[in-house]
């Protein structure tokens, strides 16, 4: 079977693309505190936690103190708060403050582990992965004290089939109906107004059973997405639920004026002993939206008028301040850096146009990666990549099948090019027409020219770049693309983006390999997550032998925290500062 993502927009904004800037995030210092993870291994230690590990309370944060108000300054408001509409890493991360899901990532010392959140564990599979059963914990409650039931979880998932919920992830509808496309899935069931969804059973108040037509290995990860949050039918206010959802987490939303301000207070009915992930240290969170990114960063660095108690939800450190944080040790301490979730940046190649692997090998050898990174801020911008998959994925191991010098090796590239049947006369590189994009284009033109490869730079409107490059008859040979899998397993990487039968929106490299397609079909029938991941990593190496795309970097994200804010780290999965772990030092 095939996995089709519904649209390009989803691909581009997948897991972590935030409602705020995607920008050339950057930052050199490694994180002080729990964010520091080893660079060559996955931050996911044991992917799935046991029932014991899923019991609350969350591991205490060392030195944490109760009380105070944390200010959150963000350049923009969140695009959606309705749990079934949220599909962006920053919002996933922030909504942990008020929303709970069936499962969630517990983070200790920068290492994430998937544990049961509302559920007692990460789920029990039966029937080769076709049936998954979750049991809700006792004592979990809504902000008005009423218990959370399995019917409310089911109602939440049913909503994601509804009209207006296309903005959310397509997986529950696709998996539960067995349809490869979201549109077809919605024809079978169109949301709660179509009545009961038979594929989800709720034998009692605390048990929920999913029945899938095909085996599904990634249900525990999907159960951690915001779509898997319960919604209470009597509190479902429709479109207004997008402004103020009803809380199940440690905080509740008491006020939200869109694009202006949002105030969270402690939820008295949240019980720490049921929650293995979140804490409830500060008294309040006050969000302010709409300020300029540079102003936000300067206020936090200055530490006046609440800046000392502030951080951002997704607004990154402005490039104008790089020098300041490099030279001022006090400011440097306030930078929180970490890998931007599971994002990887590639130099994409249109394999239908550049179909000779020797030419792609020459490109890989000549690629001036280090120079391209230097014009974007250097090591701040991220670590140079050698793999298709991100180090954020479960069981990830570093590999490098096509070693190349980071500054490019024109001589070796020329030798590789000599083996090509017909070296290309010139290659067209499409880039987002921004000052940064222009500079990278200059670097590539210069670097490839040294190896005798003529690259023609073509500026394209930044918003249109991916549409242009993914179009079936796209005239471009090369372009840069940053994308992410939907959750930290390799399941949505090769089977989505390197399936020769998929259209050029998904398989934008136009990679065609019948062997790989056959393997994809075989692996998709595997219901056990670790076994499936292992097979997919092996398949990834098969793909990389053909060098369909050139990995560039694992981008880094840098945010600021006020001098009085403790416990700040970049969430290893969601890629922004995790608000649910914060406390005020005094």
């Amino acid at each position, binding site marked *: 079977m095939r996995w089709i993502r519904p649209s390009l927009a989803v691909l581009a904004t997948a897991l972590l693309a935030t409602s705020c800037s995607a920008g050339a995030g950057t930052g050199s210092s490694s994180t002080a505190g729990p964010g520091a993870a080893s660079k060559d291994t996955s931050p996911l230690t044991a992917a799935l936690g046991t029932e014991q590990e899923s019991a609350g309370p969350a591991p205490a944060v060392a030195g944490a103190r109760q009380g105070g108000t944390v200010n959150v300054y963000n350049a923009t408001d969140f695009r959606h708060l309705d749990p079934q509409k949220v599909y962006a890493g920053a919002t996933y991360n922030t909504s942990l403050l008020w929303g709970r899901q069936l499962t969630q990532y517990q983070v200790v010392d920068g290492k994430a582990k998937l544990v049961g959140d509302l559920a007692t564990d990460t789920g029990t599979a039966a029937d080769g992965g076709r049936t998954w059963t979750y049991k809700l914990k006792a004592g979990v409650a809504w902000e008005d004290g009423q218990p959370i039931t399995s019917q409310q979880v089911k109602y939440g998932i049913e909503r994601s089939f509804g009209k207006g919920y296309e903005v959310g992830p397509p997986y529950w509808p696709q998996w539960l109906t067995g349809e490869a496309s979201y549109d077809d899935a919605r024809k079978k069931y169109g949301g709660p107004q179509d009545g009961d969804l038979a594929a989800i059973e709720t034998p009692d108040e605390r048990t929920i059973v999913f029945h899938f037509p095909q085996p599904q290995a990634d249900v525990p990860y999907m159960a951690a997405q915001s779509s898997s949050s319960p919604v209470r039918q009597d509190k479902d206010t429709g479109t207004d639920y997008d402004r103020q959802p009803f809380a199940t987490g440690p905080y509740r939303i008491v006020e939200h004026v869109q694009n202006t301000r949002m105030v969270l207070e402690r939820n008295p009915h949240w019980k720490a002993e049921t929650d293995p992930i979140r804490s409830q240290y500060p008294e309040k969170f006050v969000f302010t939206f709409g300020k300029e990114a540079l102003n936000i960063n300067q206020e936090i660095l200055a530490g006046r008028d609440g800046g000392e108690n502030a951080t951002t939800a997704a607004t990154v450190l402005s490039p104008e301040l790089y020098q300041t944080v490099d030279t001022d040790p006090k400011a440097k301490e306030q930078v929180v850096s970490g890998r931007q979730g599971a994002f990887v940046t590639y130099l994409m190649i249109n394999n239908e146009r550049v179909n000779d692997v020797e030419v792609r090998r020459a490109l890989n050898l000549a690629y*001036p990666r280090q120079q391209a990174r230097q014009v974007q801020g*250097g090591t701040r911008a991220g670590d140079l990549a050698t793999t298709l998959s991100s180090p954020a994925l479960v069981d990830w191991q570093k590999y490098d099948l096509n070693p190349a010098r980071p500054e490019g090796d024109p001589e070796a590239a020329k030798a590789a090019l000599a083996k090509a049947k017909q070296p290309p006369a010139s290659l067209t590189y499409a880039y987002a027409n921004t000052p940064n994009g222009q500079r990278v*284009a200059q670097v590539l033109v210069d670097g490839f020219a040294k190896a005798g490869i003529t690259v023609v730079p073509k500026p394209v409107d930044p918003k249109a770049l991916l549409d242009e490059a993914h179009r079936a008859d796209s*005239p471009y040979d090369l372009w840069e693309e940053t994308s992410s899998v939907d959750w930290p397993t390799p399941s949505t990487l090769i089977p989505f983006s390197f399936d020769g039968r998929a259209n050029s929106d998904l398989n934008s490299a136009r990679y065609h390999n019948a062997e790989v397609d056959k393997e994809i079909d075989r692996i998709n029938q595997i219901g056990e997550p670790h076994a499936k991941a292992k097979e997919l990593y092996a398949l990834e190496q098969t793909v990389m032998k053909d060098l369909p795309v050139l990995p560039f970097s694992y981008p880094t994200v840098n945010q600021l925290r006020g001098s009085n804010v403790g416990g700040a780290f970049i969430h290893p999965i969601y890629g922004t500062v995790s608000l649910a772990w914060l406390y005020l030092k005094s």
Partner: protein
Amino acid sequence: MAVVEQVAAADAPAPPPAPVPKSLLRRVCRDRTGAVALGVVVLFLVLALAAPLIAALYGKNPTEHYGQNTPGLLSDGGLPVAPNGGISAEFWFGLEPGLGRDVFTQLLYGIRTSLLIAFLSAAVTTTLGVLAGVAVGYLGGITDRLFGFLSNVLLAFPTLLLLLALSPVIQSRLVDPGTAEPAWMQFLVLVLVFSAFGWIPLALSLRATVRSLRERDFVQSARAMGASGFHIVFRELLPNVRAQLLVHATMAVPTFVASEAVLSFLGVGVTEPVPDWGRMISRGSEVFQADPTYMVFPGVALLLFVLAFNLLGDAVRDALDPRAAR
């Protein structure tokens, strides 16, 4: 934007002959400011013409990424390692942050970009302005009313918006996907847009002048003697507006230089890798906190250049104005 400031329409000059005095250069130089301004303008012209020669003697070119190719010149983040933006005996004005190109040769070749566009635009607008202004002023009547309407429409046109909207269209419609937009096309578009709107103010002021000249005795008598329209326009009217033209042209050049810099700053002017001051200033503003030196050179160069041309224009006007006290 590209609208050239309206030159104050002098009242009808004295009856013929009132040609441009032969001693104009001497008169401009008699004014000390004018002499200095002329000197600076000539210096810029010489630098622009001799750019390849100077660059060859200096041993650098404006396109090579020195900072990236030679370790130790730029930091990991792309900033010049040496103080003051990397100024050294090797790189007189320092290095460009990021790509590490030589600032001195970038500036030098930037003069060529600015001057080429500005001179071409000034030439086209002046020609158009003269033809339209004199013809309309002489003909009057329905032509005059049509012209009045057309000029109002063109003056109301949002030039900057037009350029912002036009540049992607030109990119996608006129340029083959496999090739880059050639530099001459960028230049041509800028010159065309500047010209399309820049001729109106001159034409308007000339129309007013010619309208009053046309009623003067010398024109009337030429007409009475049976002179053709062609003769009247070219022999009687044009020589009387020559001074106005010269002043306009001198003032137009710095306006176009500044406009071109603004457009490049906004990303719709001249693109990489053609050296350009506006783009240098734009990059300077990005890195201003970290490397303020980089902004100084293109900023000061542009200021000097525009100032010198404006002062020269003033001096020319003073030299030509019969009523100016000397």
